[in-house]
């Protein structure tokens, strides 16, 4: 019914695709044995290390995620850096 959805402008993802996405995330965490608490802890430590070398403008914007790849799972950190020129 994909084309019908488009025809009627249905934008929301289906509940089954939401379920699939949530499952993939939860399974990566299950398989790596990394609890949300440990994940937060690790994120804090990563930030602390990065900050020793570069200026991190907004620690809130840092995203550390576990994602599922083809053959392996990936730990990804996305760290926005400040862009102010050297003074």
């Amino acid at each position: 019914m994909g084309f019908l959805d488009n025809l009627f402008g249905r934008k929301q993802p289906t509940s089954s695709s939401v379920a699939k996405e949530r499952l993939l995330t939860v399974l990566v965490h299950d398989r790596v044995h990394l609890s949300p608490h440990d994940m937060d802890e690790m994120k804090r430590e990563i930030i602390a290390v990065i900050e020793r070398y570069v200026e991190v403008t907004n620690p809130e914007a840092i995203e550390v995620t576990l994602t599922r790849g083809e053959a392996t799972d990936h730990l990804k950190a996305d760290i926005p850096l400040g862009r102010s020129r050297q003074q």
Partner: protein
Amino acid sequence: MAQVITITSGKGGVGKTTTTANLATSLAMQGQRVVAIDADIGLRNLDVVMGLENRIVYDLVDVVEGRCRTRQALIKDKRFPDNLFLLPAAQTRDKDAVTPDDMIALCNELRREFDFILIDSPAGIEGGFKNAIAPADHILIVTTPEMSAVRDADRIVGLVEAYEKSNPKLIINRIKARMVARGDMMDTPDVVEILAIDLIGIVPDDESIVVSTNRGEVAVLDRDSMAGKAYNNIANRLLGHDIPFLVLDEKQGLWAQLVSMFRTRR
């Protein structure tokens, strides 16, 4: 020499016992010599699903503890008196009464007399599960297309590997074609992709399962049951036949599609 096939799932209530009863019966219909073992000690149920609950004298624990010979505990299914038997679980005893080694020894004894030994595993990942998979040559993992069931199935896949059992096969049970069509239930390819194991069967959600269980019959004996047809197909695949998967699309008119689409729009 029999093949030992364990039916397991992780999550409870996804249809392990129904699957075991149907596959056992279907294999017997094709002339195979089959024994179904209920390994869910303390929560016996395979007997009622097969309609044999009134004929139990001895059980699995009696056999393991030597109170009877194995033969005496096997209940004959009257529909297939020569080739379908049930070894019931104990109902009230200590669930630690049986060990994985007991199960292996029992199956080795039964292998000589049967073509298929099907073991109905308890839910969970505790001792009962370990007992059920210890003697297995093949493992069938049953799930439904729901998040919690798939997550638990994933745990089981990991444990099966940890116990050095290879190549478990997946059965996706209770698929509601109408919900899949409108995007409200994960589809077969989604579940297969997530669990990354081979698919051996898809079974539609089918009210006839409840009716046949009520009567102590099994769906594979009912020619009109879609679920029964699906289980017959799985049994045939176990026998090495190449059977295409059922097409579960429910025939829906355009009007029904539109109605169901508008209903689910948020």
